[in-house]
């Protein structure tokens, strides 16, 4: 891995992992197809627009405290930041930070720049941004256009680092680099690990110094003791403050102190990354890139153990973290206790939802975890739709193959395929990714968000809230029923008479 970290730009996830975004079959087939590489060959003959790794990179960068974003692009990239920054400001407020939307600038590459190069403009924009806004971090987002014309953005970043006050972090995330949006996690973390310090700075960060006598020695012991119980938990845009609170609550119950990175962190906070006993992932496809780096760089061990959704996955996640501290017995007892309370709390909801059929659509790990969770509570899983698939998700799909061997599994972020599946499978409920809810409503089908930064989905609190939200949704579906009667779909009727996945190519 270290060779990746030394490159100025990260590898697209496509070249680092076995990855795909087009598949229809079941979990076992998907795992096999991922292993033997057949997934790599697949594509579609028809595509609908979606998102790109630049957009997700922006979504992450916009949360970082006291930062500023310079988008090295023509004027359109980043237009989505207007509504995104409002959400990020809310997220900051929710975590006790100043709810400010960070400034952002576009280098606004024109025809002349595309021909003559945009390096000068990038430098000027970074210098202006630093002078005018005094941020702690400037994210330089390198998009399609400068990547194609061969701008040496990295050299500009290297040069400006010495000329500006801010730390300059480059995020290389051209949209054409990968159809898989999750590649942005690697792009973002690559920028963070190369552009920022992830360990305390002498004389800046308070730390006991060796050789200072008995008092310092005691302070150092305290420090080490605290560090030995501190875990870094790696978050993401899809993980809201309520989910962080739930994870913190559960880890605290085990005597562990949890801190969350890298979203909603500041430069100063990020320098504490090395000062933890363990790095913990909350999703297999989010953060292996940086966790492996921290392991190599600081010998900081890590745990990647799925997503803490539902009883079984949460228990497993807790146990995997706990075993690093010799706390397996405590974690099992905690899970027993929490499950007892939660089972009682969800009982009325479970009674109302038993037998409901559901189609689940969104991030690869979450949909897998959600499917088995709901199946265990008596839902009928009609289908699972993962936005992408890569090696990281294999444990989840192996688990799925064992527990729900017959459930149809598709790798698809495509609305037309979702529309077909909803019309042909006729689920009682769809649980789906943000950005699809309006389209699902127009089909007249009840639906809830798979995640939302404003909701709770993780652990015991999350499970209760998911079920409560499902029951809430089913209490009145009139809006959708009425809306769908008046909405005309753009797809020809003949498509719905054939295979939903007819455009997937091998």
């Amino acid at each position, binding site marked *: 891995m270290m060779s990746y970290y030394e490159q100025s730009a990260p590898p*697209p996830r496509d070249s680092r992992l076995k990855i795909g975004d087009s598949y229809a079959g079941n979990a076992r087939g998907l795992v096999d197809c991922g292993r033997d590489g057949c997934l790599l060959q697949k594509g579609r*003959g*028809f*595509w*609908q*627009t*979606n*998102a*790109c*790794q*630049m*957009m997700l990179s922006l979504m992450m960068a916009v949360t970082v405290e006291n930062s500023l974003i310079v988008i090295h*692009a*023509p*004027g*359109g*990239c*980043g*237009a*989505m*930041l*207007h*509504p995104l920054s*409002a959400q990020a400001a809310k997220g900051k407020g929710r975590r006790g930070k100043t709810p400010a939307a960070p*400034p*952002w*600038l*576009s*280098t*606004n*590459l*024109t*025809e002349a*720049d595309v021909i003559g190069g945009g390096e000068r*403009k990038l430098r*000027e*924009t970074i210098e*202006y941004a630093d002078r005018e806004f005094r941020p702690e971090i400037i994210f330089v987002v390198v998009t*399609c*256009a400068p990547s*194609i*014309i061969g701008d040496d953005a990295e050299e500009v970043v290297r040069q400006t680092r010495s000329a500006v006050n801010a730390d300059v972090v480059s995020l290389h995330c*051209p*949209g*054409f680099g*990968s*159809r898989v*949006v999750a590649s942005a996690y690697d792009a973002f973390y690559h920028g963070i690990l190369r552009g920022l310090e992830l360990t305390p700075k002498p004389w800046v960060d308070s730390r006991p110094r060796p050789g200072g006598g008995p008092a310092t020695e005691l302070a150092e012991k305290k420090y080490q003791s605290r560090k030995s119980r501190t875990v870094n938990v790696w978050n993401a845009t899809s993980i809201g403050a309520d989910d962080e609170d739930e994870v913190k609550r559960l880890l605290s119950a085990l005597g562990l102190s949890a801190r969350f990175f890298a979203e909603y962190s500041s430069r100063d906070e990020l320098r504490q990354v090395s000062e933890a006993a363990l790095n913990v992932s909350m999703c297999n496809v989010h953060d292996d890139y940086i966790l492996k780096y921290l392991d190599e760089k600081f010998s900081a061990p890590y745990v990647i153990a799925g997503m803490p959704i539902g009883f079984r996955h949460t228990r497993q996640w807790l146990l995997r973290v706990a075993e690093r501290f010799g706390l397996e017995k405590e974690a099992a007892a905690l899970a027993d206790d929490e499950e007892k309370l939660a089972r009682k709390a969800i009982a009325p909801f479970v009674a109302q939802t038993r037998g409901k059929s559901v189609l689940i659509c969104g991030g690869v790990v979450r949909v897998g975890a959600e499917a088995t969770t709901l199946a265990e509570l008596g839902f009928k899983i009609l289908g699972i739709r993962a936005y992408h698939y890569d090696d990281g998700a294999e444990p989840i799909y192996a688990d799925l193959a064992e527990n729900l061997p017959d459930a149809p599994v598709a790798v698809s972020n495509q*609305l*037309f395929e979702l529309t077909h599946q909803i019309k042909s499978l006729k689920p009682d409920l769809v649980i789906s990714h943000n*950005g*699809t809810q*309006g*389209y699902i409503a127009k089909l007249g089908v009840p639906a809830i968000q798979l995640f939302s930064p404003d909701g709770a989905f993780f652990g015991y609190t999350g499970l209760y809230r998911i079920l409560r939200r499902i029951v809430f949704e089913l209490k009145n579906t009139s809006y959708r029923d009425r809306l769908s009667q008046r909405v*005309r779909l*753009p*797809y*020809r009727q003949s*498509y719905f008479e054939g295979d939903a996945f007819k*455009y997937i190519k091998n």
Partner: protein
Amino acid sequence: MSDFSDFIESPRSACALAGALSAIGNLPEVIPIIHTSLGCGGNLANSVAFGAGYLGGGYCSGGAAPSTGVTETEIVFGGGDRLAEQISSTFELIDGKLYIVATGCMTEMIGDDAAGIVSNFRDGVKPILAVSTPSFKGDSYHGYEIALDGIFNHYLPRAKANNPKLVNIFGLVPGYDPFFRGDLEEIERLLIALGLEVNTFFTPGQTFENLTSAPAAALNIVLSRVWGLELAERFAERHATPYIATDLPIGPEATDGFLRLIAQRLGLEAESVIERENEVFYGYFERCADAFCDGDLKFYAITVANSTYAIPLSRFVSRELGWIVLDTFVTDKLTAEQKAALDREHPIQFVAGVQEIARAINRDHPKGGGQRYFDDITPLYIIGSTLEKRTAAARGARHLSVSFPAYDRFITDRGYAGYRGGLHLFEDLIGQIMSVKS
């Protein structure tokens, strides 16, 4: 930061592709085929779907829009085959009356010949055209013009007959003029009252036939001093339809003038409509005088909007409300010629950056800083975009979002044009003040 080619802080527009997609996505049964990587269409659509009063997506826009989704492979070997395949499959799957291939920066840079590929699909059964909308060619306003130019001046055949009662409305850019639908509907209502038939193209009541009938129009009305002009000129060359460019009328005085202008141009009588509309307007407006005047709601005003909206806004608050306009910030990127075409009744500043505007306000209108005798600019009302909210808060000013981006309010059929629009604008400006009472 005033040069067209300079970097921009928080752009209040996006790229040519964005403007083209916003226009296409609001036209009835017109299907975009976006020849870019998979993200462009989604990102750009979302910026208006959630950033322009929550405009959302329609029939086959937003996340439903077909796209070639080019990757590294196409960047290296060319995206022509992928485009051809996507056109075929779009024809097969998506039901539309007109398909428009819109390019983006990466496919233009690698030299894909979208127009050439599209010409292979011109079998007369499925109408298709290509427009060249790379982001570096211009912003969203340009994209609107490029897309409409493709439809009206390249795709649609020359008019066979002229309809002396028919007019086309141009100049309002979907999304980037957040009230385009309400504004167009009010203009349509008034022109129908004059006895005209009206193509507004972008409102829910319009059909594909409004597009195809457009070449027969007797007059193109451009509700902007800048945007839609080049389109109207080319339209005149191709279809011999003359055009008239005028400010978007907001409120009774401006709308009286607008109706007289159009009536005069087409040899119609406007006075009875003007009289009736004023009766209704003042029937409401008169009653507002109690709250407006007893509440002492007179303000200094600063407007921040594109060239289409900023000047009519300043004029409205000045003429109809008697407020004192201090600054009119025009935020779209204009050439010297375009700047010269704007009305200067109120002094204009061509500044777009949020920080720059805040700085200009503080520079030109210093705060009192606690001095007892200081003639400052309170009470102040900033009428701009959501980006001005913080600027207003810092100055203790009232604030209403009327320009892009507007994501602190929700817009359906609301508009500020015409008589009804004047009432709505007044209602919203004063409503902001009333809404904090408890």
